[in-house]
């Protein structure tokens, strides 16, 4: 599905990603761990096509196509979706409006479909609100997932979907993510794939991830079982990763 090869990226002159390799297959869900500022969000934004993320070298292949030179909107239309960690508030643009636009890009849809999606994330009352304006942290996460559900991308990127979400809503968030990744129908092989950045790992209680990677200082240094890596990080912190990398 996604093949990131030797990607080196700068933002405003600062090196944020160094020689990153990451391959994610169709049907696979990968979680990305790493300390603050290590480059996790930069990797997601670069894959999405953020204008500030200048690719120095390397390339990004999506479903066999080189998308390195494509703009964000083109990548979105090809089927890449990103739930932002801290999206901007967009005054005057209603949540329902952007959902209609996302649904409309996939073909004809009915208003009931939109209302149904909003109900799944307990956001019916937010449809007429300005996008993210005055939303709480948890509401933003749910609104981001709702937009992705309307987009239905092949490749789903989630930037800390569990931070700021209360215990009641984390289950909804987990369900929504499983639905986005089509985790409920693994027998079909699944057309989707995902990359989830998580700090706390809470979301792993609700989403069945296949593999985890650890990012340190702009590069992916380790990969393995999500549970095992999370336990290691909890036990030894990222300091342990640094030492481990040193030993290698």
């Amino acid at each position, binding site marked *: 599905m996604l093949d990131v090869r030797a990607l080196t990226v700068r933002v405003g002159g600062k090196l944020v990603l160094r020689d990153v390799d990451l391959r994610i297959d169709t049907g696979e869900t990968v979680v990305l761990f790493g300390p603050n500022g290590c480059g996790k969000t930069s990797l997601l934004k670069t894959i999405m096509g953020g204008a500030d993320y200048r690719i120095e070298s390397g390339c990004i292949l999506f479903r066999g196509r080189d998308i390195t030179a494509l703009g964000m909107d083109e990548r979105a239309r090809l089927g890449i979706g*990103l739930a932002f960690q801290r999206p*901007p508030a967009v*005054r*005057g*643009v209603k949540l329902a409006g952007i959902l209609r*636009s996302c649904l409309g*890009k996939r073909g004809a849809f009915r208003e009931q479909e939109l209302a149904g999606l909003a109900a799944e994330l307990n956001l019916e009352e937010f449809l007429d609100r300005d996008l993210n304006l005055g939303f709480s942290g948890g509401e933003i996460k749910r609104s981001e997932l709702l937009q992705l559900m309307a987009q239905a991308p092949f490749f789903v990127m989630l930037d800390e979907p569990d931070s700021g979400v209360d215990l009641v809503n984390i289950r909804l968030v987990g369900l929504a993510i499983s639905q986005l990744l089509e985790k409920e129908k693994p027998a079909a092989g699944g057309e989707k794939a995902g990359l989830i950045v998580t700090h706390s790992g809470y979301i792993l209680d609700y989403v069945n991830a296949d593999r985890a990677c650890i990012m340190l200082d702009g590069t992916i240094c380790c990969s393995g079982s999500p549970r095992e890596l999370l336990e290691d990080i909890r036990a030894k912190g990222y300091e342990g990763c640094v030492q481990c990398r040193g030993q290698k």
Partner: protein
Amino acid sequence: MKRKAAAAAEKQAPYGPDIDLDAYSTRPEKHGAVASLTELPVEVEERALSVGVAVGEECRNGSFFQMDHSVVFSAAYQSGLEVMDITSALEKHAWLEEYRWRALAADADKYTARAELMPHHGYFLRALPGVRAEFPLQACLYMTQEGLAQHVHNIVIAEEGSELHIITGCTVASPVRSALHVGVSEFYIKKNARISFTMLHNWAPDVAVRPRTAAIVGENGIFLSNYICMKPVKTLQSYPVAYCEGDNATVRFNSVLLAGEGSDIDVGARVFLRGRGSRAEVVSKAITTGGTITARGHLLGEAPGVRAHLECRGLILGNRGKICAIPELEGCVKDLDMTHEAAVGKIAPEEIEYLTARGLTAEEATAVIVRGFLDIEMKGVPASIGEEIRRALEGEKIGGGF
């Protein structure tokens, strides 16, 4: 009154560039009356429609149509509503003289003075006590002659417990490039009465416009004003004022302005909150694609329990153009709550990028944000007028290509 006005004939207005009034002709050709607005030529019909005035009069309770200095049509279709030209109204109602220049001073500046010294009609609209207009009244002030001056004086009265909805469109025939429009409008909203007033302007690149508007709002009265000018104009300066005289009076001014290259727009709204518990909201949305906009707002809280909010938002599209937001609050009693919010800038790139991540192109994202910016509160405005406002705003292809 004439003497007072004559003394102010050269008095410059505090805002806006000074206009040489003598540069405009005051001798237009005469236009004959029509029995129905549908008799008007198609090109007039189209221009009128662009400012919300429909010749078919669908969903209208009455119409007034003035071309240059000739009143060509006036009619009311609901009992208890009056629609006529001001000259006839003053002849019919001797008491109306009491209302002339009560809310505004004839010697405020050279433009009010001109409207008194050289009046060219204008409309008189009135709802009798307790009468609630089912549909809006519409009025069109139309200019057909190059270089003409049109000075109108309008008076609108909502008697106690009545309700009026008005849509006024001011425009010029399509070949006209230069003209002067001076429009004096006085609104009287009595106890428990309500007026919603929507004004759409569609001028031409060399037209000078000086509306002079004031409203007096009585106890529990409501005055809602929407002003929209999205088309080129050379100079437009207006600073309508409302006096919340009665307790619990409510005033809302919304304005949506677009200044292209060469347009100089200076529009504000001032509200005196004098009645206990009176409320005001002034919201201005200004976009420049190369012109200059000054958005003023002034709230004066003079009674306890007053609540008022002022909002000036300016959007700069492109690399030229200027927006100046000047909000002012003045409170002189302790028990009041007045706030203001002003923001001027371009569209934040991260907002555009965010929407492109949802599959919109940068042009689509910009257009969506601009449309959202122009969205105005339509509460209290009849659906048919809301539609006209939406049409006037959506007709604009702005925001793309930046």
